[in-house]
């Protein structure tokens, strides 16, 4: 039998060991997103590109449901296994930053990388003059409406003010019998409830450490919502209609309008093509708050426990670069970027006169982007936010559903808030 030299056996083994050790040296940079699994090809491409450009790092993408991400992050942090980056919205970013659970992103607080992003987006993510997130995608609400119902109701012009919008909504209910819109009163997703409406309408919520919503103007607003509820202009289950249910109601013809982000149209296209074909789109009017309704900036934050900040920053800058933000906007067809160059791309206005409702929605949303501020209470305003918001929302629900006069509900909520804020 022919004898092979020892080196012949050893070489492949050594090569394998070297490859193994090179692999072992790679630092895993895990990033979490929520509800973005439908866009897996985009993320897989991002991971591939990042890993190719950074041989010592290995990006790993994990997607989960929005309601899992906070509890999972908390448990991961408590276990000392925080990921490098987590996809957060603005309220969560502020909440976690205030409690010292996030790392400030110094490269964005005063570095040259600031120039990549829209100033309005960086402002949204700033807590005590430090930026705590890499601005990612944004959204604003558009009005997607059922052309047949609008025509039956005899509506021809687009509303230019919120009052006109409400008047049209009443007309729709009166002439067609179908509830006109769902005003996002459900609060589970964090982007609903009366606090947002007060801000959109330019009414204060907290001022000088006190509840500022116990005024005749606020009473008038709550009473008008109560009247919309009583007369069926908004559905009876408005307090439970989250994004998913709103899309489902509109798709099945139980709502004349969908007043949510343009991403919802993608769902309508899949769920009910016929309804999609008879959908027209218009921008949501700007009210006295001078902010676009439904602005909901997403970011990537670095949790406190993650040690390799440099790697996390590298990945954060990559994922939110002009190129990647434009790529996700193009891929999803409905998301809006928060980086300057990407926003200026001709892609966003190209569909203004398209036959596709999604493309018209994108152009309508892009028009509102300059007003895209995420509605936020002053930092640290509520000492027991979960309880205070729960009590406030309960009072608003009682008032709007007609179980309590609006004035009494607002006064009770204000008294409770003031008592708690005074104790802080």
């Amino acid at each position, binding site marked *: 039998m022919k004898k092979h030299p020892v080196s012949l056996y050893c070489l492949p083994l050594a090569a394998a060991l070297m490859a193994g050790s090179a692999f072992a040296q790679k630092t895993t940079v895990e990033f979490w997103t929520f509800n973005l699994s439908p866009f897996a090809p985009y993320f897989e491409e991002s991971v591939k590109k990042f890993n190719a450009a950074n041989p010592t790092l290995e990006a790993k993408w994990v997607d989960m449901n929005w309601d899992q991400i906070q509890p999972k992050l908390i448990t991961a942090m408590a276990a000392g296994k925080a990921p490098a980056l987590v996809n957060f919205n603005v309220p969560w970013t502020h909440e976690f930053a205030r409690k010292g*659970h996030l790392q400030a992103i110094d490269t964005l607080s005063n570095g040259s990388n600031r120039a990549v992003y829209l100033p309005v987006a960086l402002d949204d993510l700033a807590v005590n003059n430090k930026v705590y997130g890499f601005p990612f995608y944004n959204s604003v609400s558009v009005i997607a409406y059922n052309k047949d119902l609008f025509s039956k109701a005899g509506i021809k012009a687009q509303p230019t003010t919120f009052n006109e919008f409400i008047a049209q909504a009443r007309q729709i209910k009166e002439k067609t019998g179908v509830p006109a819109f769902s005003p996002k009163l459900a609060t589970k997703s964090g982007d609903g409830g009366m606090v947002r409406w007060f801000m959109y309408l330019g009414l204060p919520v907290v001022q000088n450490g006190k509840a500022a919503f116990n005024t005749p103007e606020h009473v008038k607003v709550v009473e008008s919502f109560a009247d919309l509820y009583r007369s069926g202009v908004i559905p009876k*289950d408005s307090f439970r209609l989250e994004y998913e249910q709103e899309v489902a109601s509109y798709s099945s013809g139980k709502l004349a309008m969908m007043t949510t982000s343009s991403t919802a149209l993608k769902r309508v296209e899949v769920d009910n093509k016929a309804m999609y074909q008879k959908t027209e789109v218009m921008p949501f009017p700007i009210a006295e708050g001078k902010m676009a309704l439904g602005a909901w900036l997403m970011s990537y934050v670095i*949790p406190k426990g993650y040690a390799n900040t440099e790697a996390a920053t590298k990945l954060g800058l990559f994922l939110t670069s002009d190129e990647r933000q434009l790529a996700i906007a193009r891929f999803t067809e409905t998301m809006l970027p928060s980086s300057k160059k990407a926003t200026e791309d001709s892609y966003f206005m190209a569909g203004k006169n398209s036959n596709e409702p999604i493309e018209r929605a994108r152009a309508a949303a892009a028009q509102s982007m300059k007003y895209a501020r995420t509605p936020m209470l002053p930092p640290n305003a509520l000492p027991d936010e979960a309880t205070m918001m*729960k009590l406030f929302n309960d009072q608003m629900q009682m008032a709007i*559903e007609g179980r309590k006069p609006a004035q009494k509900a607002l006064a009770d909520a204000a008294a409770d808030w003031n008592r708690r804020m005074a104790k802080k």
Partner: protein
Amino acid sequence: MKPRHTYILVAYLFLGPALILLALFTFLPVGFNTYLAFHEYNISDGSATWLGLENFEYIYHEELFHSALKNSLIYLLIVPIVQIMALVSAKLVNNQLPGMTLVRATIYIPVITAISIAGVVWGFVYKYDGMLNGFFSWLGQHTWLLEAGELIEIDWLGDPDIALYATMAFTCWKGVGYYMVLYLAGLQAIPREVEEAAELDGANAWQRFWKITVPMVKPTILLCTLLSTIAALKAFQEVIVLSKGQADTYTALYYVYDQAFKNFVFGRSAAAGLVVTFFCVLLAIAQFRMFREKD
């Protein structure tokens, strides 16, 4: 014959794996929770500051916690209902009648259905224009209680007077099958001769049920009652999927969750959790006393 201490050692060896698991996943978390209840805990650096009874004082004065605890105690109403339904179902499906396997499976299916999926389905059942109101409207119209075209639109999950009970009904539906299986095991352990002897003595079905079945499954009743009491006090998932704690359905465990995962006040959350545990223990003692075998 082996010495007594060898038998004890073997017994502990058999108990060992279970004891280790219990220690790791039950006693340790309960102990840590108790520790947290007296501290202010920071998750980012794991530091804990001694607070004494401050967390308990806070929840003692917190009206929302009182109302949450009240709702959890109201939830206990489902315990006897679930037990009676489960025992009766078990008695029914214990008979050798055609189709009983299908009936057993039907009653058991809710147990293995994920609560999130079941919650979404029941959300449609409970909607104001959902299946339940649709059924009542149809019934009303066909019994001339309602006029043609008139609809019942009860807001099952939005009306604070009924939302909690609607959620409790869901818990009953979800839990009956589980307890039915336990009762079925208990029933099958009753010797057939005992029933036959009673039958020969002229006892009717009702008498046999109360005088033979119930006393003989008493240990199972104790176990099931204990388990369903704990489940009722821990009601949280069904609330979060069905009503999101709105319309006066906020339970004590929802408060625990909110304080930990929304406010990040783990000490206060642990204190509230400890109060719920206290009620569980109290009720368990009462049930052991009620169902214990008389000498």
